[in-house]
């Protein structure tokens, strides 16, 4: 193994980043994992320092260190603040891949891998159950599965299989219906988008999934795909062209839910007229915000709803704190994940909002766990739910 350690990292010239790190510590106090423990072993700075020694001595990552590395939500706050512009997101992904090379992937990551390979979804469930989310909107979706259309809706594994998240998909379907949009969904042909592999640094394993999805979408003549899940959106929008070349996605647009709503508003197809008397605090999902620089559309939607008051938390947009749900932390370190989400909820509570909102099923899961364990009065609603309620759908 000796000479092979950190091979891919070195190939991508990312090994030198551990030396470039200035040890300024800027990344520490924005890191949810560091803030959870206040031990530098848990901070990006601390991890880079340890890796630098391993890389220098050509030693593999030991199991206990691998565990610590996975205590990370991949929220990207470290990259955003980094003194020396280290591409930390890519770096952590590569390091997770390296951890797989030395056989120290956490059990839950191995489970996800097996599940995706065998069942094409992250829950190891039958693909026949993919359309569970449509139960309450059967009348709208029933005849939309696998039909050719210009607009497609990609629900993603979480919304598809987890009953608690289904309302996000339902609300989106209701909006399509309200707008009279002919849309399609892939049904059983919707597989995992591959996001867990990107998060775990195994791009190669996601290639097949990407190719499958793109060929399905092309077969149905899709020109625009709408996502509620920023993880799936980023997979299609960034990782697929990165893996397969930019021409692979030509002719298809991938847009998050908020952007879709804004477009409808701008085209005059959607107007909010009813009062929605709530104070809402907006949480920027990491995969949409810091990872893709998309911040404004959701706010534009919220501000267009009469009666709705948007109150920002102290840390928003590129400085937003993480919900605790990213980077597979929910699976690898569920308790830490809940504590992180509780901290974000506390910030939302400070604004006096009665609703905490975001556009992300992962954030919804995290926040609902946090709200329960914190016994908070605040309610979480996905943007799609707010829009549907505001329109009286």
């Amino acid at each position: 193994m000796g000479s092979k350690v950190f091979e891919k990292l070195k190939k991508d010239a990312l090994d030198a980043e551990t030396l470039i790190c200035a040890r300024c510590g800027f990344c520490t106090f924005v890191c949810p994992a560091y803030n959870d423990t206040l031990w530098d072993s848990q901070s990006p700075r601390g991890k880079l320092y340890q890796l630098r020694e391993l890389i220098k001595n050509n030693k593999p990552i030991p199991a206990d260190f691998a565990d610590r590395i996975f205590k990370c939500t991949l929220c990207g706050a470290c990259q955003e603040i980094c003194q020396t512009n280290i591409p930390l997101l890519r770096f952590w992904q590569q390091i997770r891949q390296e951890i797989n090379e030395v056989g120290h992937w956490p059990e839950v990551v191995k489970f996800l891998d097996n599940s995706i390979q065998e069942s094409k979804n992250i829950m190891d469930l039958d693909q026949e159950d993919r359309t569970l989310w449509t139960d309450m909107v059967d009348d709208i979706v029933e005849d939309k599965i696998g039909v050719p259309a210009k607009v497609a809706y990609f629900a993603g594994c979480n919304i598809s299989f987890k009953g608690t998240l289904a309302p996000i998909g339902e609300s989106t379907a209701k909006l399509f219906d309200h707008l009279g949009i002919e849309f399609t969904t892939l049904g059983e042909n919707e597989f995992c988008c591959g996001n867990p592999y990107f998060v775990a640094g195994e791009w190669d394993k996601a290639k097949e999934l990407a190719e499958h999805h793109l060929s399905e979408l092309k077969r149905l003549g899709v020109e625009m795909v709408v996502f509620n899940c920023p993880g799936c959106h980023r997979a299609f929008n960034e990782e697929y062209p990165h893996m397969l070349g930019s021409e692979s996605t030509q002719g298809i647009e991938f847009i998050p839910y908020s952007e879709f709503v804004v477009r409808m508003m701008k085209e005059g197809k959607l107007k909010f007229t009813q009062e929605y008397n709530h104070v809402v605090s907006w949480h920027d999902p990491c995969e949409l915000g810091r990872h893709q620089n998309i911040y404004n559309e959701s706010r534009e939607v919220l501000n267009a709803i009469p009666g709705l008051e948007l109150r920002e938390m102290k840390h928003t947009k590129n400085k937003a704190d993480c919900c605790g749900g990213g980077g597979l932390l929910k699976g690898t370190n569920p308790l830490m994940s809940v504590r992180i989400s509780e901290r974000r909820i506390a910030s939302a509570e400070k604004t006096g909002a009665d609703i905490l909102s975001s556009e992300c099923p992962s954030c919804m899961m995290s926040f609902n766990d946090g709200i329960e364990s914190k016994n908070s009065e605040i309610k979480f609603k996905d943007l799609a739910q707010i829009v549907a309620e505001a329109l009286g759908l």
Partner: protein
Amino acid sequence: MLREKQLQALADIVGEDHFSAEEYMRKLYSHDVGALPGLVDDILKTKADAVAQPMSSEIVSNLLKFCRKNKIPVVPRGHGTSGYGGALPTKAGVSIEMTRMNAIYDIDHDTMTIEVGAGIIWSKLLEDLEDEGLTVRAYPSSAPSSTVGGWVAAGGTGIGSTKYGGVKEQVVDLEVVLPDGQIIRSANPPQEFLDSIEDHDYKYLANEDEYLWAIGKISKDINDITDLFVDSNGTLGVITKVVLRVIPLQTIRPLVASFERKEQMVWAMQDLMKKTKPFYLHFITDGFFGMLKEVGMAPESTHPWLILCAFEGSQSSIAEEEKLFKEAIGDNFGVVESDHLGEHEWAERFYPMRIKRLGPSLAPSEVYVPLKNIVSFIERCDKHFKGESFALEGAVTDTGEVAVLAWFLDDERKTISFLMGWYRSLDFIEMGLKDGGRAYSIGMWNVAHSRSFYGKQELARMASIKRKTDPKRYMNPTKVFPGPLQLSFRFNLLILIVAAIAVPVVLWIANILIGDLLSQYISWLLVTDVQSAILAFGIGLIIGVAAIEVVNWVPITFMLTMGRPFLRLGRKIFH
């Protein structure tokens, strides 16, 4: 190395969750931002034996009492963002990291002061004060990660210092746990404590007037010894709470101007200091600009000599100052850049190390130089460090000095050349002194400048506190007070082995070369057979032990001063 029992006792004091003696943790709490040449790591005991993160002043006190009794060195630590070696262990021991003591205890709008835990991070404090309509007078550009206590202990100037002075001018009072475990308030220490240190003090002072002047600065009570703890680098105790002066939160207007030549830039800064009162006045040299360009972070300015000038105040006062700014820039042939560029550079005020990517190592050094001598200083540096890649930046203080920071690019993977390059950081300060400057901060590497930095009187008073509370110097040893170095076990063993082998070998060779001559005087010493070789080996061991004793008493100042010419020469050869 601490014994298991000692580690357990320390863990019991601080709490298991806030204590670690894990190998990786010890390393993580034993560095600062400077990369140490490998040799230093080999020579000194630069790795702490354990890390403790106390939650209260009482716990700190108990920790110190235990360490003092057991002769365990203690290194106070904020967040390790300094680069002067102050937070580095030199004799192993316990690193006491303060970031868990991060509360805001009091915000007093009447007296415009706040009391905070020493471990609070500046950016968190700034954020929380914002809610109260307040802000601090100055903060370091490491604000996103450095602690209030760390900056107080390291000393220095930062953003806001052009108008309000350095950290010293902000601090009103400190809670300090002295090395003997006693908890005092520096603005009002117990009388018996003052009496005991004043006794010592008089020996070092010429007369009463001088004494009163020394501590009566900034119109404080005679009983107030706060200044002695500011920039004392954790040698006089652990700072646990800090009372700071604050100001109302007002508008900040950042403006940027660029110049073709350094003289124009310096004239403009002199004009600005005469006509306006900037909150922050900072410059970068064309060299710095060039490096920023290489890493894709250079602003799109007209010229490469750049100043960032931020005004603070009401809208109307700022408008007035902005007018004067534009005049000063115009008068000195500069170009006032766009507002967008101003905002960009203001946001970049926290990022002096963007250029590190070009290294990948960066050796820093800092010195205060009067603004009027800056041109000469820059030219002196250019000449002295010819052939080295380096960049300068500087920030003007309220006293008209400039804190000039040098960044020398290097590559720590080139072990020898990197070690030799160390002379630059030391020489840089000497260059500054030649232009009427003074050291910026002491820590460990600048310990040779302690006397001039603190002044004779202040250092004497600090020394008397040290003598009274820490006679064995367990508290942050080899910092500020240039005590002897204590070499690592590895290095001592090396000296012993080298001596034990060298003596018989030398005597054997001598016997071959000039045996006839020597046998007339010291025939018993010559190595001719196994028996005489064993005897010489024994003598070698004795010489080795003696050498260890001597070397372990060599003060760090001696090492740094004597080593510099060799490093300089070595660098020329190996670079």
